[in-house]
């Protein structure tokens, strides 16, 4: 999907003696993270992290366990207020533009005993609250989202009966149903097999191509970051690299972040 990343905003007419009547406004980043530091008790989880993600990119956030990847996503969502710095989504303070974000949480945090069907889950993404009853129009819209992710057969099945891959599709349909400009995913490939993981990236890339949306995904899969992302952010409490995959997923950068070089075979270019 790297080819879909847009070119940088064009510059104005440099040689003009007077400023043009209309100038190209600076492009608002899809995700702006400015000097963010987060501390939980004595533990410094994020240390002065700053970067801008331009609209239309597919960002992979990689790093070892405990690197602060999920914390960074939660700062972007407005779930965690940093001790220092701030985050913004399309120029809005984190948490102030929920309608522009589609979020796919880690599936391991989800309560499987909750009595619900996949279509109710998707409708919750439309209403931004849980439905008492699903109206016909809402069901039609939810079904369209489920069809988009190849999960139309799951609509009336209880969430508790879905496999990891099926559940992931249902959550993805929920995130995409309101056509967000930014899709945030926290380890979406955890607990799913290779094929389901492949389908996930395919779905995200198709959605991105259709909507021109931005995707930011936490992942442990360096190969996926290499092959699907147009930008990679290497994090281990602080920023160890941010840029093109081929520039950032280098031995030196990964060694610095991960502390070893066992990754080599996974990210060979």
């Amino acid at each position, binding site marked *: 999907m790297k080819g879909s990343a847009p070119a940088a905003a064009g510059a104005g007419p440099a040689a003009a003696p007077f400023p043009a009547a209309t100038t190209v406004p600076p492009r608002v980043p899809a995700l702006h993270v400015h000097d963010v530091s987060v501390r939980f008790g004595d533990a410094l989880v994020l240390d002065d992290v700053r970067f801008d993600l331009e609209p239309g990119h597919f960002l992979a956030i990689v790093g070892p366990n405990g690197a602060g990847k999920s914390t960074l996503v939660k700062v972007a*969502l407005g779930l965690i207020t940093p001790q220092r710095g701030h985050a913004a989504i399309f120029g809005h303070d984190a948490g102030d533009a*929920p309608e522009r974000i589609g*979020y796919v949480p880690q599936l391991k945090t*989800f309560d499987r005993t909750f009595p619900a069907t996949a279509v109710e889950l998707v409708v*919750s993404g439309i209403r*931004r*609250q*849980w439905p*008492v009853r699903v109206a016909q129009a809402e069901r039609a819209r939810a079904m369209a989202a489920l069809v988009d992710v190849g999960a139309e057969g799951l609509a009336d099945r209880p969430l508790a009966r879905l496999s990891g891959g099926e559940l992931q599709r249902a959550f993805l349909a929920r995130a995409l149903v309101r056509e967000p400009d930014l899709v945030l995913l926290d380890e979406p490939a955890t607990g799913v097999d290779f094929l389901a993981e492949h389908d996930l990236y395919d779905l995200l890339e198709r959605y991105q191509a259709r909507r021109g949306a931005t995707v930011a995904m936490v992942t442990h899969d360096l190969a996926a970051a290499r092959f699907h992302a147009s930008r990679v952010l290497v994090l281990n409490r602080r920023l160890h690299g941010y840029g093109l995959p081929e520039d950032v997923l280098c031995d030196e950068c990964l060694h610095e972040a991960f502390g070893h070089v066992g990754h080599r075979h996974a990210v060979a270019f």
Partner: protein
Amino acid sequence: MDGLFEILGFAFMQRALAAGLLVALMSGLLGTFVVQRRLSFLGDGLAHAAFGGMGIGALAVVTFGVLDAGGGWLRHPLWVALPFALLTAFGIAYVRDRTDLSSDTAIGVFFAVAVALGVLAFSRIPPDVNLGFNVMDLLFGSILAVRTTELTAIAVAAVVVVTTLGFVWGRLAYATFDDELARTDGVRARRLEYLLFLLAAVVVAVSAVVVGIVLMAAYLVIPAAAARLWSRSLAGTSVRAVAIGMTTTLVGVIASFYLDAPTGSAIILTQAAVFVAAIVLRRR
């Protein structure tokens, strides 16, 4: 059937049924969230907080005559039990919110303290003082003796609980499904949890007068647990929990009349029978 109509002709029986059905309505709606959030011990904790509050209330009436001048209904210990239960609910929610302690630990601490305060308060009341009720009534309920005052309190609580839940149901259910997901959509999940605890305190405090402190927690949990086994949606669980609560109340009250059995026990045992049936016949 004539016998049944004859029973329903008694004013005390009408009050008992009205009170029981309203308690079932509130308990079913709230119990759905209590069970789904794994807070089943909450009902126990708050019911015992109500006991502590009733003890303090009774002691206040006896010692200071605080409410004595206002007439009979003002002397009811509910007026101290209710704020005491609300304070306890807030305390439990606060400890859950601000510390790493689990719900059962927070509830367990408040439970023990409330019972200790209740026992201490009742022990200070001379045995020859007529409180208008006895401690056994508080523990095990006296639904057939429910008075218009208590029925009014229950009806007001039911209006408050049903109206409030009707207003926040979608957001509370969303936060119950996934707190984090709901918060990303602008739902104030933390406030809703405090609200849930405070509503539970209202239900438990006013209902404990009817079904008794010991049995109140079961009233909050058993219909919702049975309904959960038969439902595939949270809304369906709520509807079934209310239906089970109301039906078993009706059956329990009538059975207790014919069997000359304690009414609170009869209601809960009927609910337990439905729960067993729900396990056997649960949807797979």
